[in-house]
C-alpha cells in the first residue's frame, strides 16, 4: 500500500503504515482554511490504515479549535472502531490547546513517535 500525502498552501499531511499501526504526520498551520482537506485526509487515512493510529503533531505551527475538534472526532471514531489512538505532542507548543481543553488528560499523549508506536496495543 502506497503512502498518502496531501499538501495545502500552509499545511502538509502524510500517512504511512508501521505494521498494524497507521502513523499520521500533520505539519504546518491547521486553521479553518484547511479544515476540509484535513477532514478528507483523516477519512482516507482511516480507510487505508484502520483504527489503530498514532498522530504526530510535533511539527505543527498552529492548531485551532476546529482542527482540535477533528482530532477529537478521530479519537472517537478510533474508539468506536475498536482501535487505539495516541497523539505525539509536547505541552509548550502549538498543540498546547490539548492541555487547555483537558484532552491531554483523556487521550494518550507521548513526547516521541517511537514511544507512541511502542505503546500501541496492536504493537504488543
Amino acid at each position: 500500500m502506497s503512502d498518502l500525502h496531501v499538501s495545502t498552501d500552509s499545511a502538509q499531511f502524510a500517512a504511512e503504515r508501521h505494521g498494524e499501526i497507521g502513523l499520521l504526520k500533520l505539519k504546518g498551520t491547521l486553521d479553518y482554511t484547511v479544515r476540509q482537506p484535513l477532514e478528507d485526509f483523516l477519512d482516507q487515512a482511516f480507510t487505508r490504515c484502520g483504527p489503530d493510529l498514532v498522530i504526530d503533531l510535533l511539527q505543527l505551527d498552529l492548531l485551532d479549535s476546529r482542527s482540535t475538534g477533528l482530532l477529537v472526532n478521530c479519537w472517537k471514531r478510533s474508539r468506536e472502531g475498536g482501535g487505539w489512538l495516541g497523539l505525539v505532542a509536547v505541552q509548550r507548543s502549538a498543540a498546547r490547546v490539548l492541555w487547555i481543553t483537558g484532552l491531554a488528560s483523556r487521550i494518550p499523549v507521548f513526547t516521541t513517535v517511537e514511544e507512541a508506536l511502542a505503546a500501541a496495543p496492536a504493537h504488543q
Partner: protein
Amino acid sequence: MDCGERGLRSTPVVPSSDAAGGSPGADTGTVSLIQAVLDGIPAQSAWYAPIRDQDGRITDFEVRAAGPHARDVHGRTGKELIGVRALASYPSVAGSSLWEGYLRAMETGGPEEIARYVHVETVEGVAHRSTYTVTATRVGGGLLAAWVRDDDEARLAARMAHTERLGDLGWAYWNLATGQVEWSEHMYAIHERDPADGPLDLEGYATITHADDLPLLRQALATITGTEGAHEFEVRVHTGGRLRHLRIVGEANRDAGGQALEVHGVAQDITHWRHANDQLALTQRRLEEELLLTAELQHIIMPVQESLLTLPGLRVGVRYDAAQTALLGGDWYQAMRLSDDQVLLAVGDVAGSGLPAASAMAKLRHAITGLAFADHDPDRILVALNRLLRCVRPDVLATAVVARYRPEDRTLTFTHAGHPPMLLVRGHTVQRVLHPGVLLGVFDDASYTHANIRLEPDDMLVMYTDGLIERPGRDLYEGLDILAATIAEVVRAAPADRLSAVMEALVPSNTSDDTCILVAHVKPNTEGVPDV
C-alpha cells in the same frame, strides 16, 4: 504615375482601322477623360488599351486608366494598376471566358457580361481562387471593364447570417415617408414568420405585441423618431403560439431639417436570458425570505438585547454576531438572575453551524438554565450537560464556560469545559482566568471541578467564543494576547462607562465563524461586602 507614364511611352500601339477612335493609347485626351469618369464611379473599373501584333490581332490589354476602387488579386489598387498588362500579369486569363469576352466586346462594342469568371492565381506558391463577374464594353477604342468580386459579397452575406443566428439578432428597416419595411432573414426567424409573407409594418407589429407592452412600443417609437441617438427597449411579442422577449435598439436617420426619414432597428431574442433572470430573481427573493426567517429563528432561540442587563450586583452586556456564511450558529450565552439572588453567567460554543449546531445549542442553553435553578454549581452543571450531549447528540462537540456569581461576597464560582480563558479586567490590568476541564460531548464519564475567585468593585469579566480571537494563521493565544492588549488600552483611557467602552472595542476577528461576547461589570458601589 511613373509606372503609367513609362507604360504609355514604351508600349507600341499599332493603329487599327477597325478600332473606332483610331489610336487610343496615344490619345492622352481620351485617357484623361476616361480616367476622370472612372474616378467618379464607385465601382471596380479599369480601361484597357488593346495591344496588337503586326497583323492587327489583339495580343494583350494594358491598363491606361483605373477607378479608385479597382483592386486586383495581388492587392494593387486604383492607379497602381496603370501599365499592368492582362496576360502578362495574369497568365491564367489566356484562353479563358474572360479573354474571349474581352475580344468579343472589342469586336461588337459590347457590353459583354462574363458571369462568375473563376480566376486562379498562384501567389507565393499558394493558389488563390476568386470569382468575378465582369462587364466589358468597347469605349474610345479601348476596353472598359467593371467587375465585382462575387465571393466577397457571398462571404459578407454568410458572415451576416452567422452573426444574426449566433446572436439571435434580426435587422429591420422602416421608411417613414413611404412606409416601406425590410426585414433580414433572421428577423423572420425570430418572429417565426415566413419570408414569403413579407415583413410586418408598424400596425402589423402592434397586433403581435403583448397588450401590456403596446404603450411602451408606441412610447419607444416616439422616442426614436423624436430624439437623437439610439434608443433601446424591451417588448414581448406573440410568435408561433408563444411569447418571446425581444430587446430592440433603434435609431432614426434624419434630413437636414432634423426630420426623421427612416428607422433602422436591431432586435435580439432574449427570451431564454429573461427566463433565467426571472428564475434567479425568484430564487433570490426566496433566499432573502429564508434569511429573514433564519434570523428570526435565531432570535427566538437566543434573544440578544442591545441594552445592558441589570442583574444583582452586576451590569451585563451581551452580543451575538452571526457568521457571514451562516446565520444559524452554535454559539450561545446565558446571563440571568437565579431564585436566590445569585447570577448565572455562561458562554458556550457548539462546533459547526446551521440547523444541527443551532438545535444542539438550544438544548444546551435550555438545560443549563434548568440546572442552574436547581441550585447546582458549575461543575455539576457541566457533568449533566456532557451526559445530555452524549445521550441525545453524540455527534456534537461543544465547549462552555459556566459561572455562578454571589453578589453578597462578590464570589465567582466557575468551570471551563474545553473553553478558552475568561479575561478579568481589574483597574488597568487584564489577566486570564482559567479552570480547565475537558470538552463536552466526547467522554461518557467526564467530570469537572470548580474554582472560586473574589471579584472587586468595578472589575469586569469577559467571556467570549473563539470567533472573537481566532483567525486563519493566528493561534488562539496570540489572539487572546491581542484582545487583552486592546481591552487594557480601552480602560487606561478611563472611559466614563467602562462596560460600554469595552463592549464597543470587542470586534470579531473571524467573520466566517459566529461570535458570542458577554461582559459582566461588578457594580462599583456594592455595599456590605467585607474587605478580604
